[in-house]
């Protein structure tokens, strides 16, 4: 019993990190239809900036917000300098631009920070919490809480604010959005800034558990993207469920079957789901009018 609980807690910890990354994907996809492969780098920018500041003696409650702002600046930079100049380039080109940007960002981070592995103390210490024979780190609770908070915030923002609705309108039909007076440029800009902030926040929260290096973003983006696909692209609730599902599948496989097949099991489940439901668990069925 206690071992099942330990596997669940492990899965939820890891899943919350995947979910936080997946939520960032969702936002940019919602605005532009682009799967942003530099999303993992936002996470690393957050983690590395926080680590550098904390090492320099800045208290964590200041370093954290500063790291999120740094992530936001990188996100806006990515949009203004790489995506916007590409203008009306087809989606595939934009996706490739994000891949290029991620490689560029990794290079810059090697120079700005360094090539070492970084970590800092958990916000509430590193002493494990015990209950019913299983253990969890207090930082894991921060990560889980953070993911759910970001989800709630995004769901409210996209569904219930004017700026959020503007983002959705921009995504579904840019020309029509312009015609009804939505500033689509601003919507795009906003979505990149928010998405980067979400990514950086994930980095700040997760670094005490996952550690971070300049190139940790690749794996983060891969897992986060998988979570997005599983949950349904563009749906924040799907991103949340997808992230937790992948984390739990990995932990259960490692616990009950074999740790060798952990990653494979997650991908098999994703493939199986996508065969039956190509739009993911909670994705909208898209129909195009011809």
């Amino acid at each position, binding site marked *: 019993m206690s*071992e099942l609980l330990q596997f669940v807690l492990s899965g939820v910890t*890891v899943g919350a990190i995947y979910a936080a990354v997946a939520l960032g994907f969702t936002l940019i996809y919602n605005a532009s239809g682009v799967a942003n492969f530099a999303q993992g780098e936002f996470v690393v920018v957050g983690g590395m900036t926080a680590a550098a500041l904390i090492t320099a003696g800045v208290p964590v409650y200041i370093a954290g917000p500063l790291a999120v702002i740094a992530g936001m600046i990188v996100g806006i930079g990515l949009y203004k300098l790489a995506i916007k100049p590409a203008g009306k380039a087809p989606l595939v080109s934009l996706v490739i631009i994000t891949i290029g940007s991620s490689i560029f960002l990794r290079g810059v981070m*090697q120079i700005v920070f360094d*090539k070492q*592995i970084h970590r800092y103390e958990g916000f509430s210490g590193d002493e494990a919490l015990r209950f019913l024979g299983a253990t969890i780190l207090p930082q894991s609770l921060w990560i889980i809480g953070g993911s759910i908070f970001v989800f709630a915030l995004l769901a409210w923002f996209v569904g219930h604010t004017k700026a959020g609705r503007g983002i959705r309108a921009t995504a579904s039909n840019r020309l029509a959005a312009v015609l009804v007076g939505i500033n689509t440029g601003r919507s795009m800009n906003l979505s990149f800034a928010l998405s980067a902030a979400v990514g950086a926040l994930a980095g700040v929260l997760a670094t005490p558990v996952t550690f971070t290096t300049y190139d940790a973003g690749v794996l983060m983006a891969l897992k986060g993207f998988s979570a997005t696909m599983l949950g349904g692209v563009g749906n924040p609730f799907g991103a949340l469920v997808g992230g937790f599902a992948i984390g739990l599948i990995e932990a259960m496989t490692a616990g009950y079957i074999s740790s060798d097949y952990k990653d494979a099991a997650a991908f098999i489940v994703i493939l199986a789901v996508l065969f039956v439901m190509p739009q993911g668990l909670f994705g909208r069925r898209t129909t195009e009018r011809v």
Partner: protein
Amino acid sequence: MSLAKLGACASALALLVATPALAEIKIGASLAVTGPASFLGDPEAKTLEMLVKQLNATGGINGEEVELVLYDDGADPNKARTFATRLIEEDEVVAVIGGSSTGATMAMAPLFTDAEIPFVSLAGAVVIIDPVKEYVFKTPHTDRMACLKIFEDIKKRGMSKIGLISGTGGFGKSMRAQCLDVAGEAGVEIVADETYGPGDADVTPQLTNIANTAGVEAIVNPGFGQGPAVVTRNYAQLGLKMPFYQSHGVASDSFIHLAGDAANGVRLPATPMLIPGKLADDDVQKAAVTSYIADYKATYGEAPSTFGGYAYDAFNMVVNAIKAKGSSEPQAIRDGLEETSGYAGVTGVYTMSATDHLGLDLTAFRMLEIQEGTWVPVE
């Protein structure tokens, strides 16, 4: 005139003006200075550059200056192969140091064998020198030796049943295979065998399974990079108490920093470079270890890593071979390297032979334990 042309003219002029005062010995190197294995290649390259500068400042080898031709292969075997060709055909080097990774080394080895140029690898795997290749040497201990050293210590503590948790990266995979292979020979039994991915953030399920396996007495974690630090933290999180061993792959202060308090009590086999202050005065390696660390700190403002030490030993053995043979012909250097006997470097004491192109035995490893955030030798 374009800038490029101007530059070309300037360098042509410089060539005309500069007449070589001394003959030069060209030593090549191809290291992973950047890329995923840069934590290996970066200190290795810095070490070589520092040693060459030092050597030339003190008159070179037998009055001849040494020139280092250094390429950055980024641990990519394809690039390494290209650079190997360039080192042989264009640079005409007399010896080559490098290959930070096993992949890059194995890609280059056949080329240097064909060109009959001695090649000293800085990579870990045992396949580099087993079977012995005439022109290929290496300086780091093998992962097989690390397994034997760990098992020897476990036996000494009166235990024999081991739970293995290995990273799936190249290093962890290779060492896991070697540990499984030598377990019988060392008289221990692997009763649990788990793995984790290089980027995994939580391995508590794997550790829970090991802890629940009947009879497990000690845990061994072959791995590299951040994985072992995550495993160590999870080990402490679960409150496990059995002896816990890491490999030489994490023998650096950054491991203690990353694993924090959880690292206390962890043992691992490592080189004397981690305990310069705790070496006995009559320790044959003390002189090399203290001078290398002091020089490196003075030059780069940071302490050198174990990996830089591999380059230190490789370079010095090449230099010693040239001095001993009084010749910088590739063939002479090869013979000189093979005749290396009792060279006390920072990694260990090397004695090579026609059948042993590594020249280290288990005594080169010191068993260390982390106590209150510092390395303490286990007697």
